[in-house]
């Protein structure tokens, strides 16, 4: 994991990150590289389309800015290789059935390939069978599914990323004190992994850190209120973690409003408000995924699948820790979205 190493102040985390999944040629090592560069690297073996074929991506929603970034990456690849890209997702990230209806619609519209960011890892198995039977290649992205039908999975290792956030927080607070977490969701795999990764890291590696029971809030306003309540109820709190864009933004807001400027807040993902907060010191740092790259690589993988090319089992789109010190580094900046 080269880039992750360089961008992270602590190489061990990054080592973990990239070594866990099966090594893959294209993506995992270059998580922070801009997608077009990443693409151009493999451009030789990505065949151009004729502009008539559609790649249909079913995402988790459009509630978070994150998905807009994924979409941008996907559309960028579509343009570059002359494929049409459809990008849909349910209204919020609990609507599994709605997502499956969308997947069914995707199947009905007979695209050249389908991408799926599954809200639930088990729910889609029937539809995956049908998609396979229809001879449409399917690529998983963002989150995997419990099935070997998808030809590959383009994803962040959320568990490892959460551990990285925890590790940085431990360092920021000097290894002791009370910390809280705001998790954006308690039922999805992503939500759980980001909560569990954080908590388990603390349990295993930070004996002097007390972790408060998590509050769940997937919207900024609610997260802000929850964070503030948590801080007020526990004046000894020294650190706070928010598990996605909304939760982290809310955590920062809660910290600001509570007037506790000592509190170290670490987050997940980016977005304008988190970036601003990190720049002006209200937030210590965050883990970013590589959403644009994730979208880009998903489409590239789909094109390869359409053309019968081999794909690795997992394409790790990577993650990176960023803070005020490296936020403007080109490798980091490329993964941040406003």
């Amino acid at each position: 994991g080269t880039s992750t190493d360089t961008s992270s102040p602590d190489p061990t985390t990054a080592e973990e990150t990239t070594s866990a999944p099966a090594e893959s040629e294209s993506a995992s090592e270059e998580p922070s590289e801009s997608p077009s560069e990443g693409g151009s690297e493999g451009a030789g073996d990505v065949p151009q389309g004729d502009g008539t074929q559609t790649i249909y991506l079913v995402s988790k929603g459009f509630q978070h800015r994150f998905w807009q970034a994924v979409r941008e990456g996907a559309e960028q690849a579509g343009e570059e290789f002359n494929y049409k890209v459809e990008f849909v997702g349910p209204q919020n990230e609990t609507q599994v059935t709605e997502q499956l209806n969308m997947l069914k619609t995707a199947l009905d519209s007979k695209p050249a390939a389908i991408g799926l960011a599954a809200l639930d890892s088990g729910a889609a198995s029937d539809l995956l069978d049908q998609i396979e039977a229809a001879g449409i290649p399917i690529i998983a992205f963002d989150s995997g599914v419990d099935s070997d039908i998808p030809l590959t999975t383009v994803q962040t290792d959320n568990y490892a990323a959460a551990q990285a956030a925890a590790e940085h927080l431990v360092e920021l607070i000097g290894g002791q004190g009370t910390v809280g977490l705001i998790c954006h969701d308690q039922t999805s795999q992503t939500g759980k992994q980001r909560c569990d990764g954080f908590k388990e890291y603390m349990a295993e590696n930070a004996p002097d850190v007390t972790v408060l029971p998590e509050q769940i809030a997937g919207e900024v306003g609610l997260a802000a209120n929850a964070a503030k309540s948590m801080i007020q109820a526990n004046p000894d709190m020294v650190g706070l973690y928010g598990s996605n864009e909304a939760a982290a933004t809310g955590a920062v807001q809660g910290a600001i409003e509570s007037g506790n400027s000592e509190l170290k807040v670490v987050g997940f993902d980016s977005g304008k408000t988190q970036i601003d907060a990190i720049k002006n010191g209200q937030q210590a740092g965050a883990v970013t995924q590589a959403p644009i790259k994730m979208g880009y690589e998903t489409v590239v993988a789909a094109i390869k699948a359409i053309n019968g090319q081999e794909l690795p089992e997992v394409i790790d789109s990577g993650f990176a820790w960023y803070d005020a010190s490296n936020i403007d580094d080109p490798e980091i900046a490329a993964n941040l979205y406003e």
Partner: protein
Amino acid sequence: MSTTEETKTEVEHEAKKEGRSGSSFQQLLVLLALVAIYVFFMFAAPNFAQLGIAIDILSQSAYIGVMALGTTFIIATGGIDLSSGTGMSLMAVAAGIFLAAPPYWNLPLGAGLLLVLLVGALIGAINGANVAILGLPPFIATLAMMMAARGLALVISQTQTISIANPGYKNLVQGNLIPRFELGGSTIAIPNSVLIFILLAIVAAFLLNKTLLGRYALAIGSNEEATRLSGVNVRFWKMMVYIVGGLFVAIGAILYSGRFGFVQPSEGVGFELNVIAAAVIGGTSLSGGRANITGTVIGALIMQTLTKGLQMMGLRQEWQLVVTGVVVLIAVLIDIQRQRRANAA
């Protein structure tokens, strides 16, 4: 005279509402709206014009539709049920707990299903008791239940997705009692959920129009005090109506969870609005006293056809929301205008 006409017809409108189930002309109009929407998508959405898509729409609207059948009774009494969405999650989670493999209870299918219905009846009975006995406004009673059910679904599932491997369960909903058949070169399979939906619609129509339950529900919605003074045990029948509502939600939960064989405890928030919208688009009056089962079915189909068609058109999500809002409005408006015109005569 033209300006006068409007205010006057409004007064007259008050004076002449439709009967218990609205006219057959009304049902025709809602049906026409559905057909119009359908035909529109046949031209506007690629690949929409297949029998398979129509079956999809039917099966995807089944659980909302079934819940809407029950809610129709509740609305007929002048009540409302905001707890159907999260109540559905709770019952689906219950189904998971009863039927999934250990550590869950792994009960035989029949017993599990019965218990789910029981949970549905219980939730309905609590709503019913709050409304009929304690006298809470249905909006508040079911709003409280909506919150509580959401919490409980998360509590009892321990926020885990539960997958129900029981093949009989999935088959109940997804299987094909009607054997697959060939038509125009493609294989047509009608999932049982569609049959269940149709069957329950017939049952609901029978209950509403031909039994004491329906008659008293409408009477209560029409004039509760007069119904009470006619010697009708209003509390009892209201309770029954909410229990029936709960049972339909339970069946909705089975259709929902059986479709994919898994249960997600936090889904279902907001479904209640689609459920209510289906009933109201179909001509059931929110002030009670007028209800219409065929209309409810068509209402559910309109909602699902819209969703499916707009998705297949590849319209951006945000525009889908806008369009759905506008079409729901127009669909109900047609009904309103028709009533007015009939009255203006």
